[in-house]
């Protein structure tokens, strides 16, 4: 299945990943090859087959709604590219 370059543009926006103009052709071709692989699924009749989202067909285990974690924000913020006064710093969002 051949992918249009405009679709690559849409996917790159969805994925928050930019694609260099010089890479678009090669990337479009490689993703198209992967989509060709997906076409093999089309011919299979899956009517009445229940989708399987968990390999053991289990439901999510829930815990009591009580706080179990201790506060680690100082340790975690030491890893941040930029943090100040207990907050993560990012470029200004609101003028």
């Amino acid at each position, binding site marked *: 299945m051949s992918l249009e370059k405009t679709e690559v543009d849409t*996917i790159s926006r*969805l994925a928050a*990943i*930019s694609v260099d103009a010089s890479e678009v052709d090669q990337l479009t071709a490689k993703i198209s090859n992967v989509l060709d692989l997906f076409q093999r699924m089309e011919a*299979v009749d899956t009517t009445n087959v229940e989708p399987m*989202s968990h*390999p*053991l067909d289990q439901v999510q285990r829930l815990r009591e709604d009580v706080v179990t974690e201790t506060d680690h924000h100082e340790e*975690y913020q030491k890893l941040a590219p930029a943090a100040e006064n207990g907050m*993560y710093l990012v470029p200004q969002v609101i003028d």
Partner: protein
Amino acid sequence: MHTLSVKEMSEKLRNKEITSVALTQHYLDRIDQYDGELNAYVTVTPELAMEMARQADQMIAEGKGGLLTGIPVAHKDIFCTLDVKTTCGSKMLDNFIAPYDAKVVEASRALGMPILGKTNMDEFAMGSSSESSYYGATKNPWDLKAVPGGSSGGSAAVIAAGLAPLATGSDTGGSIRQPASFCGITGIKPTYGAVSRYGMIAYASSFDQGGPMTRSAEESAWLLDVMAGFDERDSTSLEQPKQDYVSALSNDIKGLKVGVPAEYFEEGLDDGVATTVRAAIAELEKLGAEIVEVSLPNKDLAVPAYYVLAPAEASSNLSRFDGVRYGYRCENPTDLNDLYTRSRSEGFGAEVKRRIMVGAYALSAGYYDAYYLKAQKLRRMVRDDFVNAFEQCDVIVGPVAPTPAFNIGEKSDDPVSMYLADLYTIPVNLAGMPAMSVPAGFSNGRPVGLHLVGPYHSEAKLLNVAHQYQQVTNWHQKMPESYQ
């Protein structure tokens, strides 16, 4: 010392014939000597290893710990390790010093197993060759021109070359078994949920599963005993009684029903691999196993279904890497969108970007039913094939990969050809069942593994079959000449 089995090391430690300090130093010396050419470690932690070795000797002197106390271990760089760089093979996490231990690291640390370092891997575990690491490709110790397999190629290479006695790996689409096969070592992917994913950096959460990589089945049983068990911090962890992997090793396999799917021996399978696997099956028959033919009719649908579902999960899991809280951040972002997009574009490698984009596409409006939902239905069909087959047999055997290790660079420009290298391993991950790779011989001088697949919670049985096979064969004891 590196030629001893882990059992022999353990006995010598407890009899005070060797110390953990000496054993750990021996491995650190070998890493110094050989890792330059193999590139199997991303990070080596000599100070931590020696400090832990001293503590392990103290534990042994006080009669504390267990059979693996004092035995060094290498962890795949996908497992968070307290105060140690944990990169997942990515530039994105090149500056990430983990603030806590993954469950499997915590368990090995509590037992007094010195941590030698973190092993190289395909970036975010996305790959079948360990070539996509930000830190460069790992080489196969049996032939430096060949890949070690992926994504746990670093862990496989350190065991094969004797740069660690034990290692951890993870298997999303075959990433323990395929590198184990390519490097001539033993590796087991347990039942989904048997080993906690707490602290294991997520790629595709409904597939990812940690497991041991060792020389022998006996050693895998010992390490799995450390790694497995219920963990309430992982919501997918199984609340099942732990199996006695070690005691089950010595069981007789007479009368064991071994299923051989005809679909495993179709066109595309390397002749040398086919011959080796058939010889291994004959060996199981000599041990008293009964060979029965089974069928897995939907095997070929597993690869496309996996390459829809795993990237879809990856596109969601990897959205956390946005340059805000940890990891790589681009220089001088102009606005928030620029911060997200450039940090991700500069921090991720080509294969990771491609899979995130494929995942975003598969989940996007208009394609969800055609791809994602369809793939989930095929997942059930593949799983049902296994369930039906296990009504006729106790284990299924076959090849781990269609060929022995391929050359570095051979498939790196063709993603689909790389994906098809996992066609025997991926169905097992879709089904969530346990499976292992056991060294079974060589094809053109490169190792070949025997694939054993079992029904849910049959790890002890698989290890038992592998151990019995290893009692009558010596493939697992062979080491590449240059590293003896």
